């Protein structure tokens, strides 16, 4: 297996009834799969002979206020030959849930915990889905877009609070 086109073709052959959405940007190929079948697609990709990818990264993106707002992103890297493929799954709503891939890659354990901690996405089948970076009793999930960045109040006078987002406001995309 030498390139992403072949990988996508192979995935189509293995799971013919799977709805795939393939996008390419700057030479990087992203495959969008339905969330309910992400595990199936990933386990098919993991067993591709001559590629046998490692899970380089697992993260999420919040597209709030768009719906479905969350995307879980898996970055797979085969070392010999070196080929990268990104797999994404979209998740709806306020209580997003997806299957855990810890059985495929044990290294997904902490990565999924981090995504759970910072985005509040639950991974079904994870052995120990606890917070990892934030304190255990923390409320909310900081990397969600509706979790705003604020400054802690201070006790001394003459301090102008600075929230980084207000120093240079967000400006819309250029046409």
């Amino acid at each position: 297996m030498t390139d992403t086109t072949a990988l996508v073709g192979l995935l189509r052959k293995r799971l013919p009834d799977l709805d795939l959405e393939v996008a390419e940007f700057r030479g990087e190929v992203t495959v969008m799969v339905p969330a309910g079948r992400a595990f199936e697609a990933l386990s098919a990709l993991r067993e591709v002979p001559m590629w046998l990818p490692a899970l380089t990264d697992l993260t999420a993106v919040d597209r709030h206020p768009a719906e479905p707002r969350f995307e879980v992103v898996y970055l797979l890297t085969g070392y010999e030959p070196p080929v990268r493929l990104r797999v994404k799954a979209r998740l709806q709503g306020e209580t997003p849930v997806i299957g855990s891939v810890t059985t495929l890659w044990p290294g997904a354990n902490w990565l999924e915990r981090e995504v759970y901690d910072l985005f509040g996405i639950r991974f079904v089948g994870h052995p120990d889905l606890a917070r990892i970076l934030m304190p255990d009793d923390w409320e909310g999930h900081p990397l969600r877009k509706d979790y705003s960045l604020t400054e802690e109040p201070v006790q001394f006078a003459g301090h102008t609070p600075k929230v980084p987002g207000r120093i240079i406001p967000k400006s819309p995309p250029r046409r």
Partner: protein
Amino acid sequence: MPEPRAETLTINMGPQHPATHGVLRLVLELEGEVIVGARPIIGYLHTGFEKEMENRTYHQNIVFPARIEYLATFSEEMAYVLAVEKLLGITPPPRAQVARIILAELSRIASHLVFLGSSAIDVNVTSGFMYCLQDREEVLDIFETVSGQRMMHGYYRIGGLHCDLPDGFEARVRRLTEGLAARIDEYDALLTDNLIWRKRLEGVAVLTPQTALAYGCTGPVLRGSGVNYDVRKAFPYSGYEQFEFDVPLGSNGDAFDRYLVRMEEMRQSRRIILQALDRLPGGPVCLDDRKIALPPRSELVRGMEAVIHHFKLVSEGMHPPVGEVYAAVESPRGEKGYYLVSDGSNRPSRVRVRAATFNNLQALPAMVFKGSVADVVVAIASIDVVLGDVDR
């Protein structure tokens, strides 16, 4: 006499412990002197860099990477600017690319010297620490002449470098590399055949290639187990494909192999630096696309147009196209990647820092299983953990 009970002892190690190289906490489960379970607890240094970066413009974010991973500052900055450059679809001028390689490799040497020194102090070779930090200081002195800062440089720019390398840079780096070759050989003589060093490191914290791959380990931790994966070779960036260097591999996957891999990497970095100095091209160090790179000061005092561009870039920033990219570099600790998602506005919609040590540290319980408590110290040192990178 009471019957001996079969129960385990749970002890806590860290977060404030000199051998954890930062604020790493470990909960160890012991059966006598043997470790039957280890649970790393992280997050004590979590600073929310990813969230901070989502709330700033692409230029403002240049200050963050070096603070995330404070021992390999130039590699780290490079990963971020490469990701933004990939998003914009631009390539910096050749002089900037080669200069970045020299600085990144110097960073690798500086970082590996800290590894060597701190590992040495962990197994009680106290003088080794002093020697290594002294050498690292010489590298940091060069960084200071280049960027004005020893650690948090902010020297790279999207599209190149902030300013040209200083006068006498080449001669200074050459002088350093000359001295360094002899110094590395000296450390080799001091440690590699040192009986205590070998007894503490050999056969300790063994990681099989299968486990290393399963946990997504990269860098010397993966290569020490014999898996040949180096981002510089597999996915070359910034022109690494034009340089000749070897990727050292271990065979046993123990702490000693990881040490040997790092020693050889320092020599290979020196080789890359010498090649890069020979072919350091002239010319500009930054793109002159005024929608991306800040205009130089000389233009600012002469032209109104430059002032407008400067004002727009500083007060609003640039607008990359909608899309997502992942750019990775081989940092001294492994694959360091930045995953950027752009929604077309002046700020990244998502910045994900793929930290090498986060994955490497996950393999720690597997490394120390059935070992002794004293070996945990060696295992942590051999991962070369930087908690700023783990917690971000």
